[in-house]
């Protein structure tokens, strides 16, 4: 229980950060990318601040042999840079440009109860489930490609 309260508080810090930063505001997100129009460079400060803190903090954390409540650090094992990574990310970017919400911005924004956020998150979940089904289908057809 104590662990879960601590994890809840970590989520709360993230959700507060998103709320303050403007990442939950599609108008601001879209303006960040609209350099040729109503450009709002604010979000470079979000990325800059977050990456700087994580860069320094991770270096301190990774000096420990293991996390506080786990056997080891669960870091992504894949190192391959392939068409799936680049294509998937490009597609994500297209969706982000259309809607103005990304998953990390939209999930905390659910707490406002706004209909627009709920619509986006429902569609997001549908997209994730659809992609998982597609991945299962293609993996069954081409077992070798899936292993790579």
């Amino acid at each position, binding site marked *: 229980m104590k662990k879960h309260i601590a994890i809840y508080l970590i989520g709360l810090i993230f959700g507060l*950060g998103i709320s303050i930063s*403007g990442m939950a505001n599609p*108008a601001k997100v879209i303006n960040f990318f609209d350099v*040729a129009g109503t450009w709002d460079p*604010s979000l470079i400060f979000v990325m800059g601040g977050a990456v700087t803190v994580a860069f320094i903090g991770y270096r301190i954390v990774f000096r420990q042999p293991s996390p506080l409540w786990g056997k080891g650090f669960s870091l992504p094992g894949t190192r391959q840079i392939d068409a799936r990574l680049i294509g998937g990310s490009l597609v994500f970017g297209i969706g982000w440009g259309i809607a103005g919400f990304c998953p990390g911005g939209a999930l905390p924004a659910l707490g406002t109860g706004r209909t627009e956020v709920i619509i986006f998150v429902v569609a997001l979940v549908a997209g994730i489930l659809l992609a998982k089904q597609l991945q299962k289908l293609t993996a069954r057809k081409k077992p070798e490609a899936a292993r790579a």
Partner: protein
Amino acid sequence: METEFTPYASLGGGLLIGLAAVMLMATLGRIFGATGLLAGFIQPDSSSEFSWRAALLAGMVSGPALYLAFTGNWPDIQVPVSTPMLALGGLIVGLGVTYGAGCTSGHGVCGMARLSPRSIVATLSFMAGTAATVYVIRHVIGG
């Protein structure tokens, strides 16, 4: 739609996002990625994997209420996008982040902070995709 340039608020918010990412790594040894978090929440591998994700998500969703308690206002959410486009965008984001194995938080913050080549490539790819899409919508179709 113009939005106000907010360097201090955005930097402050970014620092908190980075802090949360470091704390999750220090406690559970996990990357703070919204995509993996949500995917694992809707299709959990086991109950222990579900419970921490549920706690983290509950905290995230409570963020705007804490903001309201501090400032007296809900965070600004202005949506200059029609409902069908919002749903289409959500669907496309869901497909993309699953194939790309991450989004702005997982690749853009945590992966970049680890100097992961995969995350750097992913971040450059989605930023390029977003910028191109916004340009087309606003200045080619909409212009």
